[in-house]
């Protein structure tokens, strides 16, 4: 198990955003995380990536207790992530963003370049990150995360704004990364992408895990259908 989350809980004032969630994610697995808007998916990964401190429960990374560690500490332990709302360094170039992604690996230019290459952004190395088209910005965020050669890659809606060709390419990339031993947590609304790329999927609703299994199992689950019924997902 690369990541073991046990009873993880987070409260904001009176609201329990994440309610005693358990997860076991094996190394090299692509793990999908789905659920209606507001289900707590982003909060959950914010907890895992160190953005928030949990109110209860524990997180273990490769058998070491990492509960309560800060973002930069977790990054040094091999966790990298992208953000739902894209947090690139807009005023810095594409290459500089990638170099920063490789920060925990000594800012290696080789790693930065390789990551850009992999996401098809080498030609735009000197463009300002903010000048890129939306889809390219998403890819740059992924490249930046990859540049650190992470053990655990967390992607928060990476396909938002991508066309079918791009998301197919993303799916292939995820599969390839998994084959290389990178563990991936994927939050996505694009059903085809999540089901196509993930080995296992967990479903959250109102902060609780309501289902877990293979994509097929989860899609057939009655509770899952109910959770999504009537919910006007932006798919």
């Amino acid at each position, binding site marked *: 198990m690369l990541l073991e989350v046990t009873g993880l809980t987070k409260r904001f004032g009176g609201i329990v955003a994440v309610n005693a969630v358990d997860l076991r994610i094996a190394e090299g697995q692509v793990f999908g995380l789905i659920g209606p808007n507001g289900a707590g998916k982003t909060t959950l990964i914010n907890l895992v990536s160190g953005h928030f401190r949990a109110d209860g429960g524990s997180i273990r990374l490769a058998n070491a207790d990492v509960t309560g560690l800060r973002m*930069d500490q977790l990054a040094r332990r091999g966790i990298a*992530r992208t953000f739902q709302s894209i947090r690139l360094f*807009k005023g*810095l170039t594409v290459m500089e963003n990638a170099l*920063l992604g490789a920060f925990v690996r000594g800012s290696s230019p080789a790693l930065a370049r390789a990551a850009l290459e992999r996401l098809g952004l080498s030609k735009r190395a000197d463009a300002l990150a*903010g*000048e890129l088209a939306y889809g390219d910005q998403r890819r740059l965020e992924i490249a930046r995360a990859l540049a650190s050669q992470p053990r655990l890659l967390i992607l928060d809606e990476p396909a938002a704004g991508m066309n079918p060709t791009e998301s197919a390419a993303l799916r292939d990339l995820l599969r390839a990364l998994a084959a290389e031993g990178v563990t991936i947590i994927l939050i996505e609304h694009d059903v085809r992408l999540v089901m196509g790329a993930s080995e296992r999927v967990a479903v959250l609703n109102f902060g609780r895990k309501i289902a877990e299994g293979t994509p097929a199992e989860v899609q057939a689950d009655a509770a899952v259908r109910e959770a999504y019924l009537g919910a006007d997902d932006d798919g």
Partner: protein
Amino acid sequence: MDDLLQFLGAYQTTIGFIGLNAMLALSVWLTLYTGQLTLGNAAFAGIAAYASALLTLKAGVPFPIALASGALLAAIVALPLGATVFRLRGVYLAIATLAFGEVVRVAILAIPITGRGQGLVGIPPKTELWHIFLSLLVVALACARLRVSSVGRAWAAIREDELAAASQGIRVRRYQLAAFVLGALIAGWAGGLAAHFDFAIQPDEFGFARAVQILVFAVVGGIPNVFGPILGAVLLTALPAVLQPLQEYRDIFQGVILVLVIVYLPRGLATLLELRRTARLRTVGAEDVA
């Protein structure tokens, strides 16, 4: 040639202060480059000025050692101050450094050995122009090297987005603290040089007005690169000296130019040299930050 030397001689003090101001502007630049506002560098310069002056004056300590001691003292004081404040949101640094500046001023006025309100006089005038400009060169080169290194990039990332920076593994507080303490060290060095340049020092020279002045140099000159603060210091030190009759309005002039720059040309005057990049940053919405 004789005329040139005569001209230089007459303006020696001003030229010296241009160099000192440039160093002080660079000291503030370091913290601004990480996206934070410090108003404490005049106080750091003051601490070092008094410390080094007292060492040479009362203890006969050799000049270079006194300088180094002063600068080091400033850096040592900066460390706990920064450590306390950098774990808090940005606005607290501005407040804490402002308060710190006042504390230093009050302390100087209260401690007898500093000569209190009268200041220290009779300081051996050991500083030569070449000391100032050699120091400036070293400081400028060091800052320039830092800026393009991974340290500088980390600083820029912190300035753009602290959270994203931390996500990449950057120890945000540590990097901010490093810039702050390094800035204090440089300000201290400049302070020590200043003390031995003009025979006497007074607490007013290192107060709030001076802190603001240094800030204006750096901001007006521009934050994106090392030339900015130097340019700002040169322009805003030389101009008033040349425009003697307008001395009275210097503050107003500085205030107006500060507001104009921040509102219309946030990357400072130095970036008039790179208008295209500024335009690109503007479209990207990063003109204040980068």
